[in-house]
């Protein structure tokens, strides 16, 4: 059987979660590998959530927020950018490819962008293969 990775997607409630809903309303199709978790804001996503997901069986993690400048909470997504920069260093030390974790922006009207990000990361993770022997 081919490798079907599990990818956890943290979606902010105001933009990305609604963007993902819009992809559904428009009946766009994308791989079922992505498993959404709703958060209030991308700034709520602690690096430990991402590590926890990778440790529990996810081969990749998406963090999606409102576009910079459009955050429902003024500037939460900028905080997410900074946190991600630090997490990237940690991932490097742990020997985890940084492509496995991706921060991006999807607005409530960008169902198509959500789908293309999901397609993208799923293909990428399939290429990288399962995450083994790190934790």
């Amino acid at each position, binding site marked *: 059987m081919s490798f*079907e990775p*599990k990818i*956890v997607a943290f979606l902010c409630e*105001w*933009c990305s*979660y*609604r963007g*993902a*809903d819009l*992809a*559904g*309303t428009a*009946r*766009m*199709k*994308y*791989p*079922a590998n992505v*498993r*959404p*978790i*709703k*958060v*209030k*804001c991308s*700034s*709520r*996503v*602690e690096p*430990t*959530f991402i590590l*926890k*997901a990778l440790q*529990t*069986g*996810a081969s990749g993690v998406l963090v999606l927020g*409102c576009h910079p*400048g*459009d955050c*429902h*909470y*003024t*500037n*939460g997504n900028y*905080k997410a950018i900074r*946190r991600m920069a630090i997490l990237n260093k940690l991932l490097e030390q742990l020997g985890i490819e940084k492509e496995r974790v991706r921060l991006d922006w999807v*607005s*409530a*009207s*960008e169902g198509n962008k959500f*789908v293309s990000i999901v397609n993208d990361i799923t293909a990428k993770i399939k290429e990288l293969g399962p995450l083994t022997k790190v934790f």
Partner: protein
Amino acid sequence: MGSEPRIGVYVCHCGSNIAGTVDVEEVTEFARGLDAVVIARNYVFMCSDPGQEVIRNDIRDFGLNRVVVAACSPTMHELTFCRVLEEAGVNPYLFEMANIREQCSWVTEDKQMATEKARALVGAAIKRVYYHQPLETRRVPFNPNTLIIGGGIAGIQAALEIANSEHKVYLVERSPSIGGHMIQLDKTFPTLDCSACILTPKMADVGSHPYIELMSYSEVEEVAGYIGNFKVKIREKARYVDVDKCNSCGVCQEKCPWKVDSEFDAGMGKRKAIYTPFPQAVPNIPVIDREHCVYFLKGTCRACEEFCEAKAIDFEQEDKLVEVEVGSIILATGFDVFDPTPIYEYGYKQLDNVVTSLEFERLVNAAGPTGGNIVLKDGSTPQSIAIIHCVGSRDKNYHEYCSRVCCMYALKFAHLIKEKANADVYQYYIDMRCFGKGYEEFYERLADEGVNFIRGKVGEVTNQALSEEEKGKLVVVAEDTLLGSIIRVPVDIVILCVAMEPQPDVGAVARLFNISRSADGFFLEKHPKLDPVATTTDGIFVAGCCQGPKDIPDTVAQASAAAARVLALISTGEVEVEAATAVIDERICSGCQLCSVICPYTAITFDEKERVCRVNEALCKGCGACVAACPSMAIIGKHFTTEQIMAEIEGILI
């Protein structure tokens, strides 16, 4: 609630929307086997009355204290099910929804994959709800005042609807007078009502209404607060005319020696440096345009001051910052017209007598610069006029959307041209879209009036004549797709039906009011069908073309709808505020104050005496930035606790 969690799980078929792709039996069976699940069922429509009844009965019969519904998106029905819990005496926060429709069955083709994903989503919701805690929603008084931004027909309509119910409205308009684009128009389709005749009475009502405070020549500078309790700072720009002294005699405008292009006449006519945009302006008080006034530029003149008998001119006047408190806000900021200069092949601004539709409105308007005579730039009467549809609309290079009004005003123009100049009219259209009440009939009428309809997009407007007949004319070159051949038509005037587009500062306004925009740039409504006037920010509504192109009847309908929503809020008198806020465990807090620095709402303050931080729950919006940042893990983000999210992660990776 302190007892052990007893969870009920309900999987919805949503007809075949879910059950057609997801094996709901298998998902139910899976849920049954999970820890603390007392009962798991599936039903064809969980949101229906009988579906809700099932949950209510189970809560009673099985002593459930937590509920998971796996169905559509929580944005759709979370509130419905929270109410069910409340009615059955269970705190509504002890509920979790698994979105197995929008984010599972509708987006997955493979049934096995969809079922597996649905199992994961349901498993995650069950694990999460296990850790849910009851929260108390708080209710705070709702301020019955309303702020409306934009004094076009949408803002005017909404203001009058609300003010007529004897509730205070602040109507903010950034130009010197209300009226918006509608007051620039000549006739309105399809009834050919005179636009000014139907609008000016409403404008006058706004100006004299005891419950409307009209703030013209003003702009919103800062918005703070939340539904029911907004605080808004508004800049009243200096008019340099004392509103209380001015008696609108108009002498200042006569005496002012300085002429500038009139915005109201779309640049087709002139106005003075001290001006009211048009004679029926509301308020009918002039403003001095600082950028063009000779006194401000060179320090001499003051002719207006000299001739003003009321002594109303005040060159020392300054901008005033006013703060108002309101419970709800309606954005009715309208649209801008597309500038067709980039489509160089149409010759706008290069060739004389190529005009935009808004410019032509002024040309054909009896109160316009030519007194309503349709004339060429040299003053002669045209023999033939071409009207080009979809300029900047339905064009991937500019705007993909249809501007919805151009076909109809193009027909109106054709009628007015026939009536006033008896010239030949050539309509170049892609599709005729005459969808409204009486619109198709109007199209039929114009076809009978002898208008030429040519189906095809114009490739070029040129003054390069190829024949004697074309000399001195504008030649419109297009492919007639019905004939399948290229045709050249010499005309005297070319009207470009330009797109409606978002205001140039739409992005800044969206950020100011914390609302989203759709892909076309206009403000995004909460739901495209079921909630077209609300936005993702509670208490802020949209009306008119700021939400997307529309005609006057649709704008008026939407404005009335927004007013109705505001009045509904006012009549309840209070509003629920976020219960899912952050709270600091003071035993753990080290007083580092990192949280207070990053809080976007300054909701966290430091207690110098106790050396700990505290959250002001009235200001906290629950974003969770501080929760993630706290190095001591002393902050709990209620309803999004670390424990709950960790459990969800475990559940979703089953």
